[in-house]
């Protein structure tokens, strides 16, 4: 659980730095003013910086326009998307009703007001000797739980296959290594449209093996789709870690597994952060297959969100839809925000070419 604590620490540090950002901005401005007064910087120089910053800010405003347009919609009254008075709805009508609805009335957290709690039972039939039960309520867990369950399976299974494979590709030579890697690279992007392309084929296969309506299997499926791209990505990252660390560990008397645990994993952290985000998104955002394979009581958030969009016969309850989507995106945003530095350094594709 120590990683939990360190994650919490990281989050706290991030939040503190975020909260104090305005103060830093003020200090920055004060310094600029001071520097200009003292002749350390020319006004032109400061002006250029201000102009560039403003330009960046303006660009941000333009790029994120759809998001705050829709966020404004989520705060407005009524359910309509359009607003005939202008672009944004009247701010005086803003309220949090839609968020209240998502949290307390939709299936986001829990169904029909019952929280319940998960229980783990060992033994039993099925693929795994462990079974999850949702106890304390008749309605079963909310969609968030289903999503988290799927994502957990995807991440755990995905990582347990991606990390060793990436390591092997990066560090070992074995038969057909190049060919397999090449094949993986070919398939990195087929997954995306594939889900639609093979939807029916998938359904028929799943149902003929009796694997429909099974969150665990769905998690596996997402993990499978995430394997080629992420294996390749992580391999690229690992290629840049000097082998000498492993050799040092070996000479230090560490066994293979110890080397992996003590050296490889910590050193690959930025790469792992990147694939964590991608694997997470693979399991978190998909809804077409989930909807086809699952029954309603097992729907994850993504399907609930999609259903919300198509709920009315002809139109979408926009305020709720937007509120739901915002809450849906929040975990990803938090994870990314925490991992930003790692992600930015974990995505370098070998740098300059010769």
């Amino acid at each position, binding site marked *: 659980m120590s990683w939990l604590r360190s994650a919490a620490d990281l989050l706290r540090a991030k939040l503190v730095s975020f909260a104090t950002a305005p103060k830093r901005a003020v200090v920055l401005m004060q310094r600029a003013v001071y520097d200009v007064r003292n002749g350390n910087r020319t006004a032109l120089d400061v002006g250029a910086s201000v102009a560039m910053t403003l330009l960046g800010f303006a660009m941000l405003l333009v790029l994120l326009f759809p998001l705050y347009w829709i966020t404004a919609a989520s705060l407005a009254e009524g359910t309509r998307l359009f607003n005939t008075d202008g672009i944004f709805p009247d701010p005086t009508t803003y309220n949090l009703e839609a968020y209240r609805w998502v949290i307390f009335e939709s299936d986001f957290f829990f169904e029909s007001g019952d929280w319940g709690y998960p229980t783990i039972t060992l033994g039993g039939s099925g693929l795994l000797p462990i079974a999850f039960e949702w106890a304390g309520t008749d309605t079963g867990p909310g969609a968030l739980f289903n999503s988290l369950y799927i994502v957990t399976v995807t991440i755990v299974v995905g990582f347990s296959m991606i990390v060793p494979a990436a390591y092997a590709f990066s560090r070992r030579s074995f038969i057909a290594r190049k060919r397999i890697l090449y094949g993986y690279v070919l398939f990195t992007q*087929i997954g995306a449209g594939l889900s639609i392309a093979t939807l029916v084929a998938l359904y028929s296969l799943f149902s003929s093996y009796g694997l429909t309506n099974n969150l665990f299997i769905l998690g596996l499926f997402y993990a499978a789709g995430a394997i080629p791209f992420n294996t390749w990505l992580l391999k690229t990252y690992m*290629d840049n870690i000097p082998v000498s660390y492993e050799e040092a560990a070996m000479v230090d008397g560490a066994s293979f597994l110890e080397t992996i645990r003590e050296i490889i994993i910590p050193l690959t952290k930025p790469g792992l952060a990147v694939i964590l985000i991608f694997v997470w998104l693979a399991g978190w955002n998909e809804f077409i297959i989930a909807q086809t394979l699952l029954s309603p009581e097992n729907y994850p958030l993504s399907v609930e969100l999609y259903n919300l969009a198509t709920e009315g016969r002809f139109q979408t309850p926009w305020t709720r839809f937007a509120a739901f989507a915002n809450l849906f995106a929040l975990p990803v945003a938090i994870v990314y925000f925490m991992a930003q530095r790692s992600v930015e350094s974990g995505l370098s594709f070998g740098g300059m070419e010769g």
Partner: protein
Amino acid sequence: MASSTGSVGRLSQLREASPFSSRDWGLLLVVPGMILFSSFMLYPIFYLFYISLTDATFAGSVIGGSAELIGLDNYVQLLSDSQFWTSMSTTWLFVAVSLVIKVFVAVGIALLLNHARVAGKRYMRAAVIVPLGFPAIFTITVWRGMFSDARFGVFNVVLDRYNTFMLWIGEAVDTVVFFASVSVPQALLVDVPVGFLSGRWEAFFAYVTTEVWLAYPFMVIIIVSALQDVPRELHEAAKVDGAGYFHRFTTVTLPAIRRPVLFASILTGATSFQQFLIPWVFNQGGPARQNELIIVYGYREALNFNEFGLSAAILIVAIAFVGLFMYFAVKYGRLAEGVADS
């Protein structure tokens, strides 16, 4: 002193993860992933291929097993369908146009958000990739709303305000230039409302815009990564060599990000090729099926026209194209670089 006896068996060496190269046990680490991938991804593709060889009409006839093998008839029919060729060419155009714009937009954003003079760029960078976190179905639906043909659609409102602004400028100029009458040239004004979804090229433009918006975050993080790796000394060497901003950009920055941009382009290009939600949500590939991208075409054949076998054939062709695209991209973009034994 931990030292074992001299004659350690070959087998135990294997088990102990021998550091010596040319042992094939590395394959064992790769196999589980391959099995999982094959059973959930490759197998369905083969199954789809099988369907494409049958006369299946409904999803039910696939699942129920009443379809019969008819050989390559579906493919023959496909190739003689003019809609197939329309879809193919539109899809390629869509991929190409959106890719070019994506690259320019993403490079621009990345450069700006990596610029020394921009304060708070870390936060901006975090914010700028937020679209990545939202599910496509949501953002695309939102974009559909913004692209409404109606006068009160967001973009039409914006254009209307732009017109007002131009006219106001025109008037201001007119007032200042009292000796002649000046009016804003029509070319600078936009005829509102624009039918974003009802014209072929307007809709195409709307697709491209949305696609660019969906893909830029991924490109931006990759380019930012690359930019941060550029050695400062190269810039300085160029400065000392007498190069101005433009030349430094072309000699130092551009080569440094070329490869990552190429990677990102190939990856997002392949995704664009499979774009389904944008045309589907916007106007089902309309108007009049003119913008039916290839996956939409396949989907529609299957579900609206109940031609499942044909649909499978379309999708197989689409997959083949993506595969081919990736193959050449990998080969000539040297995407698998570093695969070479190290």
